[in-house]
């Protein structure tokens, strides 16, 4: 093994870790929604793609950097998620899985095709000056945009952690997740908390979308891929576990980057699905999950 090879391997791993942080943030949204409401959000990748398009539009038409439009997108997605949960999803909580699946599938079809109608099928990306910047650390070169995206994702994940451990609403949501009946008995407005949770989950994935557009261009067809990717990550990490979602994001980010280097880029998701199958069979609760499904 040559030094060159080791260097490019290390380079691929760091690249995977940086992208993996954004994956982690995306998966966090899915994990929070499932962990609290036991609803699997089959429209997750579609919401992500809508976030990417909004950030792209902000850049293209208003010359606002995705990093700056991120808080606005997150806020907007929080509101939209809150409203969606209250108006449409709420009656489906506790219903059979296939009904929830069909509902979210319908929402996913609507979202992705709205993107297609508005922005067309061509891939859309942002061209920023910072995309050519890089940081050098010894022999390593890091893309500046990836570093910024990863750091922002870490900050948002940290804020989310503070929200769930330090604020009254965050603690109430965890209480409702832990024991729905108990939460109702002590007088928590569980329906409002659920809407809040879906809002938070949507905000996470919207923010992840704004970050992702700085790394790769968006097409409507990415949506289904991201939905699957988010599933793979949360199952590998442990559905409902916040640490698990982030760790799963890093693991899948690295495995994709390394598979792209050692095998072929087109085989990268095969490795992810291989990992998913192994985890489902050997440790179905995921690497960081507490109890079995």
């Amino acid at each position, binding site marked *: 093994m040559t030094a060159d090879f080791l260097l490019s391997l290390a380079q691929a791993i760091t690249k995977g870790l940086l992208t993996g942080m954004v994956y982690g943030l995306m998966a966090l949204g899915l994990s929070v929604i499932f962990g609290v409401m036991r609803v699997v959000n089959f429209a997750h990748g579609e919401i992500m793609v809508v976030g990417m398009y909004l950030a792209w539009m902000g850049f293209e038409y208003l010359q606002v950097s995705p990093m700056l439009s991120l808080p606005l997108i997150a806020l907007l997605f929080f509101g939209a998620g809150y409203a969606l949960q209250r108006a449409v999803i709420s009656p489906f909580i506790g219903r059979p899985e296939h*009904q929830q699946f069909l509902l979210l*599938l319908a929402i996913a*079809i609507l979202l992705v*095709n709205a993107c297609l109608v508005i922005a067309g099928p061509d891939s859309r990306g942002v061209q920023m000056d910072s995309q050519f910047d890089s940081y050098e650390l010894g022999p390593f070169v890091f893309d500046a945009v990836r570093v910024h995206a990863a750091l922002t994702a870490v900050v948002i994940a940290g804020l989310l952690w503070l929200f769930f451990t330090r604020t009254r609403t965050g603690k109430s949501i965890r209480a409702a997740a832990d024991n729905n009946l108990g939460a109702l008995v002590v007088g928590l407005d569980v329906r409002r908390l659920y809407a809040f949770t879906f809002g938070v989950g949507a905000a996470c994935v919207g923010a992840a979308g704004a970050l992702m557009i700085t790394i790769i261009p968006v097409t409507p067809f990415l949506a289904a891929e991201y939905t699957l990717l988010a599933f793979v990550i949360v199952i590998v990490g442990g559905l409902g576990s916040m640490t698990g979602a982030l760790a799963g994001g890093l693991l899948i980010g690295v495995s994709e980057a390394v598979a792209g280097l050692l095998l072929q880029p087109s085989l990268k998701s095969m490795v992810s699905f291989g990992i998913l199958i192994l985890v*489902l*069979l050997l440790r179905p609760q995921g690497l960081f999950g507490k109890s079995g*499904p």
Partner: protein
Amino acid sequence: MNLLARLTGGVPARSLWGLGLLFAFLLVAPALLGKYGLSVLILVLYFAYVGQAWNIMMGFAGQLSLGHALYAGLGGYIAAGLFFHYGIGPWAGVFVAVLAASAAGSVVGYLGFRFSLAGVYFALLTIAFSEFTRIAFDHWAWAGGSGGLFLKVDAGSDMLNLRGGPLLFYYVILALAVGAFILCRALLESRLGRYWLAIREDPEAAQAVGVPVLRCKMIAIVISAALTALAGVWNAFYYNNLFPETAFAMGRSIEFTLAPIIGGLGTLFGPIVGAVVLTGLGEIFTDLSEVFHVSGLKQIFYGLALLVIVMYRPAGVWPWIAERFGFGEKRQ
């Protein structure tokens, strides 16, 4: 009791008459419908048939599979590949195809059920296997890789090699759909069918009263995979082309689930009614969106229709129709 009496026992007379009329109509339909009408009817029967196959797993045995494209894709690729490379006709190739899909089904089923994955977790396992296979076929030269596998379009009629016009494919898919319908009715009335319903309603209780849960689930997935593989073979020879990107796509798997869910899960008529509703809506929306010339518009109408149906008829359309018009079949 003979077989026919068992199959029709307990069914209201008006339902039997309706069924007979429907079958008679389907038999003579090609003479009544134009080319376009026939192509729509072919789609309806195709979705009714695969829906029936998927319904065995989800509607009867309660196991959610979102990876049925795996079995259809394998079946189609194997029969088409044998014909393309070795000239082995589909009437022989179909046995290999069905065997391979059943084997794939038993691997997925055994791993999933043995490690007691249920609900969403089992569904994700089925997706993972299907996606895994999709990427493998993308890189497999024998199957044409991502460039696809093409069968020569043959205008002449060669029934022995399933080459011919829409009429041939219409009667083949009609036979499959009718066969699957009768098979499902027979299965539901059998001991195995009752076991499945027990497992669907409460797997632990079923286990406790001595239902061989693992074996019953395995039989469900193998029958369902084998029937789905037949649809895959039919589909490959009807369209004359196969791409991993579509044959194993998650979208294909989802298509298979829609008719039974929309129509009414676990009912015999659900997949048929669902296929009529979905194909009908699809055709109407295609016409509508052609007026506006916007790509994606059709899917938006479609998404809205799904949303409305699942919000107002979450148990499906058929149980509601059956109750209103006294056809008698309820979800068992």
